[in-house]
């Protein structure tokens, strides 16, 4: 792939698609389980894209953004998009503990998205554990982290590193090959999911933990998003129904690697979709430009979620 595909950090189409699919999924769960008055908990960002989605598509009013960094905290407060977003200053572990201790927060289900930029760490694993152990029933948990193999030590060290992080769920026969290249993202997605299930059982959550989300995506970096729900016992079967329905799109087989397109390219492609046959490279060429086959496929699969940004030139 040519190098013009790897620039532009501000536009991350794969991440945008992923976010859209996940919010659609949460909406399905929300309506089927009749969840209301949910609280959204996210990690600090000055963009608040997830908060906007939470408000618009899930109709969530109460939102908490956690920001540890001093400057980031200041900027987050400045940038918060709605009056009902509360920006809390502190490490996620400390703020989550405060929220868990708060009776009022305990009275509503949460959507928690721990969207970390970095590789999986002890602190993140601790946050995941805390959310599963202590959040109110029907809380939906998502976590996103960097999953490039080389972030986890040299190949022969990776299994031990994972064992350090995730404990007993890491199988003794996990191979070195399973921790290399693209396989590493699959391994991480599966083992973090297993870890969540294990915590659900070990902390005796009456409805356990039901895995629901598993997406690998890549813009400039391989990322993994996994998560699920800790349903109230009475909601276990409805949640399972939603997730096992064929319309559930939050566990795609293939990773999301969307092409970075100009608005003009994207609009041109959209005008060719949807269609019954597959969009071919030839048809793209006929319309005036060119893309590689896999880029075309990725766009065709996710054109409805493809983020469209117009750049404002001041």
């Amino acid at each position: 792939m040519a190098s013009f595909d790897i620039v532009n950090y501000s536009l991350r189409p794969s991440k945008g698609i992923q976010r859209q699919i996940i919010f659609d999924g949460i909406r399905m769960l929300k309506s089927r389980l009749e969840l209301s008055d949910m609280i959204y908990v996210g990690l600090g960002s000055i963009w608040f894209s997830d908060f906007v989605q939470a408000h618009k598509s899930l109709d969530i009013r109460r939102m908490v953004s956690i920001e540890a960094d001093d400057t980031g905290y200041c900027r987050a407060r400045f940038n918060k998009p709605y009056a009902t977003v509360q920006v809390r200053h502190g490490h996620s572990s400390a703020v989550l503990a405060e929220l868990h201790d708060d009776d009022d927060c305990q009275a509503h289900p949460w959507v928690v998205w721990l969207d970390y930029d970095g590789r999986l760490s002890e602190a993140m694993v601790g946050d995941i554990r805390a959310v599963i152990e202590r959040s109110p029933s029907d809380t939906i948990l998502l976590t996103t982290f960097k999953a490039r193999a080389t972030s986890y030590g040299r190949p022969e060290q990776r299994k031990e590193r994972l064992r350090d992080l995730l404990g007993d769920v890491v199988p003794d026969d996990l191979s070195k090959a399973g921790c290399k290249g693209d396989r590493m993202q699959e391994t991480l997605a599966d083992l973090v999911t297993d870890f969540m299930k294990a915590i659900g059982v070990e902390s005796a959550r009456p409805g356990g933990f039901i895995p629901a989300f598993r997406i690998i995506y890549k813009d400039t970096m391989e990322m993994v998003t996994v998560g699920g729900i800790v349903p109230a016992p009475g909601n276990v079967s409805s949640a399972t129904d939603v997730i096992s329905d064929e319309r559930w799109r939050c566990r795609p087989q293939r990773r999301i690697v969307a092409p970075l397109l100009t608005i003009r390219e994207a609009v041109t492609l959209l005008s060719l979709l949807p269609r019954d046959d597959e969009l071919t490279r030839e048809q793209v060429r006929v319309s005036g430009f060119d893309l590689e086959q896999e880029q075309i496929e990725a766009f065709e699969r996710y054109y409805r979620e493809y983020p469209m940004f117009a750049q404002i030139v001041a």
Partner: protein
Amino acid sequence: MVVNTRGDKVDASPTKGFFVNMITRDITLEDTILDLIDNSIDAAWHNEGGQAMELADTVDLSAYRISISASPERFSIRDNCGGMTLDDAVEHAFSFGRRGSQELEEYSIGVYGIGMKRAAFKLGTNIRVRSTYTDSDGAREAFAVPILVDEWMKNDNPPWDFDIDEDHELDDDGVEIVVESLREGTKAEFGNPAFIRNLRRMIARDYSLHLNRGLKIAVGGKAVEGLPIELRQGGGFAPVRVEYKDQAGEDEVMVEIIGGMAAPPPESIDPDDAKDGDRRFGWYVACNGRIVLAADKTTVSGWGTSDWPQWHRQYSGFIGIVLFTAANAADLPLTTTKRSVDASSGVYLRARRRMRDISKEWIAYTNVRKQALAEAKRREAVPEAVPIQHVKKRLSIALPKLVRVKTEPVANVNYSVPVSKMKRLATELGNVNMTYRDVGLKSFDYTYDDHVGDG
């Protein structure tokens, strides 16, 4: 026995509900599954002639397979170990205790002959045990015993037996137990990936002596590999391996004790540096081949009892194993859950004296070692790992005689940094799993070299 306020006997017969609750209470789910594996192995062993299981003999178990599968919907175990006969089933397998006038007294004892029933009750409420075997005339026979716990519990009147049905044959002579309608706790555990992986680890360890003889145990379709128990031999190191006969009442119990260095002791005793490996060390006890106590560092194997110090990380690297072998399982020092030893057993206490002496030799070695570290490390690199079956007979453990070197006074450094920074530095230093201590030492050397130079 229940007594009313006037002191008359009112009702001395226990209910099934009470009984089921009592036998399933103090055993873990893992251990009940191991109880079923024990039954399969007993059958295989019986098929092979049922001689004493000692380390040295050469019985090959590679023809035998045990397959286990566990999901939140269903549990099953199936073996090809010969099956149980209809007589077995009628006479004892499905009854509780011996028939006769004292049958009610059995419930409070019930150490033997409860494993299978206990496992079934612990797992779920809809159970089907099937057996296919070849009788003495060479004819293949099959039967099934369905156990519907809720139905069965409705009637407390003795006898408490189960019905035996006709059944079609299994592919191989053996037993199959299928449990459906799992209990809530069981269902949850079977949905826990950590549970299944830990069960595999437990099987790998507790049946390592059988697995090393070729027995095949699969969980979820994947074979479990036995954990090798190995000791280092050579270069002045040699494990002890002694054998003696003891008496339990009239009966004879064979005892074999093996112990020595399994790995060099740790460089630091910092608990942060304790990696997985530490879990392997300590004392193991096997009863008729089944490991009932593994890597023990507690008073059960003697650490911290009279004249024997408590376990300390400094002693890591040591593995000892004691094997008790008896024709009558009742003579073995095992508890009913088979998860520990009966520390009041004379046979065991007598073995423990010898275990203590061996442990103390190792303790002494690790003490001297601290003051002769360079030489110790050089010598510890020489010996090679040998599976315990191949350890040579020797009356005592051999360890090199180290000479203490007088060392310069040292400064111990202790400080805290965020784990994330520590891990990042470890990664940059080439090993994300490097111990904190080593990261500290490397950083010190690096800075020392920069600011002080050589020396």
